[in-house]
């Protein structure tokens, strides 16, 4: 059951994780857009430039750009700078692959969930969120 304060998405890569929500205003390319050593958004053209993604529930419309983004995801996980979870309006395999390989190499992965537009907006307005293995996302509203 999904509680009134929860939404259900499709687990693209199943896992658990939670934290403060960081909802991005524009699509993001992890390669060229995220600094894996700092865990921050490094593309100066991105509206969320400078924000820290480490430990956050990262909500974004979609990923764009380079197919090297999976490598950045692996480095983020190795450096312990990864988001706690990634929730996307439209998922592709690129970020998920970085997580799969990190787990193959013995690191702790993160969940990636695909969520429809209305629910994505609800989540974007929440303060905190917790993603569980079946794709259910529990929300803590902003006070």
């Amino acid at each position, binding site marked *: 059951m999904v509680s009134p304060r929860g939404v259900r998405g499709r687990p693209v890569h199943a896992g658990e994780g939670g934290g403060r929500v960081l909802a991005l205003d524009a699509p993001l390319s992890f390669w*060229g857009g995220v600094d894996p050593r700092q865990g921050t958004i490094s593309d100066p053209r991105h509206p969320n430039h400078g924000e820290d993604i480490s430990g956050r529930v990262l909500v974004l419309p979609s990923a764009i750009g380079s*197919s090297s983004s999976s490598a950045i995801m692996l480095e983020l*996980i190795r450096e312990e700078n990864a988001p706690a979870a990634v929730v996307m309006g439209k*998922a592709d*395999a690129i970020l998920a*692959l970085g997580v799969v390989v990190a787990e193959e190499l013995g690191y702790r992965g993160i969940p990636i969930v695909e969520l429809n537009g209305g629910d994505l907006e609800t989540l974007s307005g929440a303060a905190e969120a917790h993603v569980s293995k079946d794709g259910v996302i529990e929300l803590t509203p902003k006070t």
Partner: protein
Amino acid sequence: MAMRVVVAAADALGAPRLIGVSSAHIDGCLYHGDGGVEFAEALYKGGARVSVPTTLNVGALDLLHPGRVRSDAHATDMARRQMKAYVEMGADATFTCAPYQVGHEPGVGEQVAWGESNAIAFVNSVLGARTERYGDFLDACCAVTGRAPLYGLHLDENRRAQVVVDVTRVPQDLTRRDVFFPVLGTWLGREAGQAVVAIRGLSPTVTRDQLKALGAAAASTGAIALFHVVGVTPEAPTLSAALGLVGSDAGPPGWQTQPGAVFKDEITVDAAGLRSALDRLTTAHDADRVDAVAIGSPHSSLDELRELARLLRGRRVQVPFYVCTARATWAESEEDGTAAALRASGIDVVVDTCVVVAPVLPEAGGVLMTNSGKFAHYAPANTGYGVVYGSLEDCVATAVDGRLVRDEAMWRW
């Protein structure tokens, strides 16, 4: 491990089964951190070898010009180990983002597994072979297993254009210039996002290099992996063909119908849209001089190297001028004297890598001029340089004069 990664990807994508692929292009040679080396060496030590013809994307070093890339001993060692691991797995040491320029050209309809966003756009659109957008790691695992998830652009129904892009309002003279294509691509990536598009109104004389520049820019600002150019690319002899129409196909609910065409949306390229894309490619708007020039993203073709030599006419450049290309293309340019002419003009060649993926540009920083939409897009974040976008003619004039030359008259109409 390789098969587990391919299967995990198939699960993540919801693919019903795997298919065989006939070639792979691995975008996993570039050192981003020790994880990439760990992965490549884990594959190699586990006995993995490529099972289909496989090319390699750029690495983080110019192996033919030691010292070209500034990096500390650890990064140099790790970058070299990462490139070496894939060569030892049996991949060709091409180290280029444009494998289609060094003899790796799959045929129309061939199922392949390619990484690197510009190469994906090119192989799908210009060559008509079929790949999804493979990320680092999955492309390598597909090369080893010879399998890929049956998903996305491997399938007929996902290759039909959803959006028609009308270029007919742009002056014909502009649509024939090289400088137009990175700007159109920048606009397209932002307007169309991930859609498959059919572009109508481009001249049938459009060159491969122009389509390469278009796809690279569109795959930088958006996630364009397949574009059709009506009357030019293999799956688009006509607009109807690009839209996947047979007989009186009405298209999915909500699509528009015009005589002979059914599509979801039509967008028109206008002067304001193009100027906004053009402005976006420049961040150093007040520059009156530049500190360096870089071309070759995607890697320069032999034709582009010859054009550079022709424009230079033996004159020497006053600022560092980098041309990035494949080692194989550079070797070809040695044969007809192009390489010698470029060296005599003071051009610095970069092979196996490029200036936005490795620290090559002078450390002092400043303003970089380029004719590449992809360099213009990635340089600010990756190098710290401000950028100025211009035609190859403008890049050469600026480098020779030492002050910024830009002809923008063609963008006003």
